[in-house]
């Protein structure tokens, strides 16, 4: 018996353990740094360095009053940098980061270490408030791994564990946790949040259309590669030039800005349907506003939303998480043959003082063409077609009469210039007109036949009201650049941004295929992970065949059952690995070899070593020599040599099995 290791005291705050914790903290905080104020970053780095120095040089911890002073200081600094008295999302996250880094300075005992690590798990969660993308998810999975590895390190005693001795057990724990996590994710009854009021800035920085249109604001949006929504059509995809996704409709006009009106009311849609409807499902990214996008015109409003009399769909709650809705639309329709007097007046209202030249031009057309609406529209189209250029970089326009400047001087513009000026001309010519913003077209992913509509597909067009025909879509941009409507903004303008120019240069389509694969992964991730909500859960469980009206009790039962099943499987796996071994495998094989020889009359004496035994065997039975010496050599190598690999053991066993002495 030997005392192989000396007894130790309990787990301790070893220098390397502390470093692991500090590194994990730095790792999880890193994605926040682009958002937090500079002082917070510097403060965090200082705290980490200070704590590292305390551990490294065995320095004293700062006294309690310094910590208290710092706490008050950083709280005031945080509130001051966000100019707020309310702890919103950004201020809250900043505060949490600086507090967590300060907590490290109080970390003297095992208990405080553990609390710091739990705080680290919270910091992981705060990252998700800003993004739930695949790369960030992977990054934070690593950060959880590092925290668990740190936790493992703190529970070792004696010798400081190596990196492998931390990472392997932690990785094993997480790996074995994955199936249980998946089951919980799918089956844990989802509750529709929020449980309490969200701070104002919880959804800040979401891009999308706004409820007003000034020349220039859509062209900013168009630079964004962000996805607005995805569409899956039930059967065929309608022709590209009919893909007008309606968003906010703008009636109010002050001479420069078009604004969505509060005038539209909930209404049951009345229109004549002319052809077969198009059925499709839209997965809309959060944009923080109320409208839902649909091809005109939707037959019914999806649950939780209402249709307005100007064909807008408005969700009851703001769209601040990914939503999915199914729709049926008629692309060939007549709508609004009767226009109430008040609406008519509203659709003709103009500020006579602004853009006088444009108004004069409209009036001139009305007089020349005798008020024939179709003729006036055609005249306007010709006007645009002859002299205007479609560009993403239009010249700046003045504040007072921007459309005059655009129509008669610069003549270079983007869809919002055309839509805005066209509606103005129509109103001046006595034709009721309004601006519709939304998206046009999209990008078909050949991998799953899904239409991806990006912010870059944002568009603005107009609708004019014509006697006996109702509201008719007129898109002046099509008159200037037919390619925009038929082939998308890239076709009309050439590729935008570095990614697109790469794709344009890629002759063999490898990049674009990669891009589609990435989009496919992203879309599945968005749909099944990020967008997995109450409805998706219901849908998924129905597809699994758990019944249509699955309630939380059934879910809980399934959850408990599967948890036990998986837990049982894991413990069984561990138990099998733990089963005490029957003995050294090489020894077992060699004993079998001896038994075979014993059966042939050559019994090994208890004190006879393998080599002596071999000598006696070869003397008695020279013909067995080659096999017997090979087996003995291999056995000695495996047992007394440098050890044997699984393959060598297998080979030894095979030779013993093949060995015949009788």
């Amino acid at each position, binding site marked *: *018996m*030997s005392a*192989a*290791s*000396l*007894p*130790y*005291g*309990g*787990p301790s705050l070893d220098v390397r353990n502390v470093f692991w914790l500090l590194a994990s903290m730095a790792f999880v905080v890193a994605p926040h740094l682009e958002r937090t104020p500079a002082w917070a970053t510097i403060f965090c780095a200082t705290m980490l360095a200070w704590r590292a120095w305390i551990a490294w040089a065995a320095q004293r911890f700062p006294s309690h009053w310094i910590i208290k002073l710092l706490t008050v200081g950083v709280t005031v600094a945080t509130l001051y940098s966000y100019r707020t008295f309310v702890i919103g999302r950004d201020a809250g996250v900043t505060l949490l980061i600086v507090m967590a880094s300060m907590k490290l300075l109080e970390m003297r005992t095992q*208990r405080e270490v*553990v609390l710091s690590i*739990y705080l680290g*798990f*919270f910091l*992981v*969660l705060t990252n*998700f*408030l800003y993004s*739930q993308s695949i790369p960030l*998810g992977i990054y*934070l999975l690593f950060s*959880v791994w590092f925290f668990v590895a740190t*936790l*493992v390190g*703190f*529970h*070792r*005693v*004696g*010798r400081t564990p190596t990196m492998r001795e931390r990472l392997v*057990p932690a990785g094993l*724990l997480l790996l*074995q*946790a*994955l*199936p*249980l*996590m998946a089951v*919980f*994710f799918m089956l*844990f009854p989802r*509750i*529709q*949040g*929020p*449980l309490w009021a*969200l701070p104002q800035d*919880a959804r800040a920085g979401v891009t999308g259309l706004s409820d007003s249109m000034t020349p220039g604001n859509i062209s900013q949006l168009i630079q964004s590669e962000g996805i607005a929504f995805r569409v899956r059509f039930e059967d065929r995809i309608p022709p590209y030039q009919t893909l007008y996704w309606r968003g906010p409709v703008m009636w109010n006009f002050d001479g420069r800005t078009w604004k969505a009106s509060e005038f539209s009311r909930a209404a049951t849609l009345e229109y004549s349907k002319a052809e077969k409807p198009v059925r499709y499902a839209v997965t809309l990214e959060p944009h923080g506003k109320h409208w839902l996008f649909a091809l005109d015109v939707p037959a019914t409003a999806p649950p939780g939303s209402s249709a307005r009399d100007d064909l807008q769909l408005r969700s009851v709650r703001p769209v601040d998480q990914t939503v999915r809705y199914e729709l049926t639309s008629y692309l060939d329709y007549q709508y609004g043959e009767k226009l109430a007097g008040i609406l008519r007046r509203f659709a003709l209202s103009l500020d006579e003082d602004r853009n006088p030249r444009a108004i004069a031009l409209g009036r001139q057309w009305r007089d020349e063409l005798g008020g024939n609406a179709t003729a006036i529209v055609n005249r306007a189209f010709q006007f645009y077609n002859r002299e205007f250029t479609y560009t993403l970089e239009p010249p700046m326009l003045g504040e007072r009469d921007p459309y005059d400047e655009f129509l008669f001087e610069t003549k270079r513009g983007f869809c919002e210039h055309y839509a805005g000026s066209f509606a103005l001309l129509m109103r001046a010519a006595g034709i009721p007109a309004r601006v519709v913003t939304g998206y046009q077209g999209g990008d078909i992913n050949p991998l799953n036949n899904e239409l991806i509509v990006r912010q870059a597909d944002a568009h603005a067009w107009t609708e004019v009201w014509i006697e006996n025909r109702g509201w008719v879509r007129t898109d002046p941009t099509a008159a200037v650049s037919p390619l925009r409507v038929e082939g998308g903004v890239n076709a009309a303008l050439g590729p935008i941004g570095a990614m697109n120019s790469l794709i344009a240069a890629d002759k063999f389509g490898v990049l674009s295929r990669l891009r589609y694969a990435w989009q496919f992964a992203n879309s599945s991730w968005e749909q099944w*992970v*990020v967008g*997995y*909500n109450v409805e998706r859960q219901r849908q998924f469980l129905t597809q699994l065949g758990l019944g249509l009206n699955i309630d939380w009790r059934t879910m809980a039962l399934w959850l408990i059952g599967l948890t036990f099943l998986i*837990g049982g499987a*894991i*413990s069984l796996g*561990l138990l099998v*690995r*733990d089963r005490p*071994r029957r003995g050294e495998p090489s020894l077992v094989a060699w004993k079998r070899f001896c038994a075979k020889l014993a059966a042939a009359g050559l019994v090994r004496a208890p004190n006879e070593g393998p080599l002596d035994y071999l000598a006696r065997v070869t003397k008695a039975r020279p013909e067995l020599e080659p096999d017997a010496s090979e087996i003995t050599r291999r056995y000695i190598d495996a047992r007394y040599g440098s050890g044997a690999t699984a393959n060598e053991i297998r080979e030894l066993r095979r030779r013993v099995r093949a060995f015949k002495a009788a």
Partner: protein
Amino acid sequence: MFANFRQSVSDWIFRATVPEAPPVTLSQRRIFILPTRQGYYFAFTLLLLLMASINYTLSLGFLLTFLLAAMGSVAMLHTWRNLAHLRLRPGPCPPVFAGEAAHFGVTVETPSRTRFAVAVRRRGEEPVFADIDASNVTMLSMPVPAPRRGRLACGRMEIFTRYPVGLFHAWSYFDFGLTVIVYPRPDTAAGPPPTHSRNESEEGIPIPGDDEFNMLRPYHAGDPPRQIAWKALAREQGLLSKEFNATASSELWLDWNDARGADPEARLSALTHWVMEAERLGQGYGLRIPGMTLPQGRGEAHRARCLEALALFGDPKPQ
């Protein structure tokens, strides 16, 4: 609070503590497991994470929460498994003097993997940790204060682990009935052993010593090697010991009546000191205490016999 609760539950489960025959293998049935205080904090953290995920509808927050929850449940298995199938045997429990720390030894073997951070403790005392290496036998030696002479019983011991993440405490109890003999505290103020001879009346009676060869007698366990009659052994007469007579002048009796002290304990302390001194000087000595007389002798075994007699004088209550 939970610790107390756990203690009373386990007391109820292990009502009778019968010393067990070694080796004790920690089978699945005798390992218990409950969350630690850290484990409860962890559960609370998970609850907060879950609420934040619901409130902000963070799907990845749900994933994080469930990953950590599943990690915790898997950790329970790992903690349990860190203790399972360990084999325990009693280790050395050497005697000590009162006032020193007694050490109860337990050896631990693992049949498979190395087990990290396994600890042994007696109730209410600091645990002793060690890694149980797969290729070796590990000895854990548990210090226990021994304030009074007599027999110190170790009683029930707990072997536990919290590895790998400290969320769970897996433990088992075992009791080998280990005892340590605690000698009286030597009273260094008692001076050198008294050298006067009190046995003139018994002159002529040979007293075992080692000055003058007397006779050969059968070997007794504990006889020093230099007393063995090697020549007799070589003549195949069996194992015999040479017996010497001590000369009356060097004959030393450590007598209860010579030891001064207010109470028996003080006398025992003085006698203990004398035994140590006599042994240190290489003198033969005998011990006379009420109810027991140990004949003249010398050497490690003799000293141990004397000290044990002093330790157990008057049959003190086991501690």
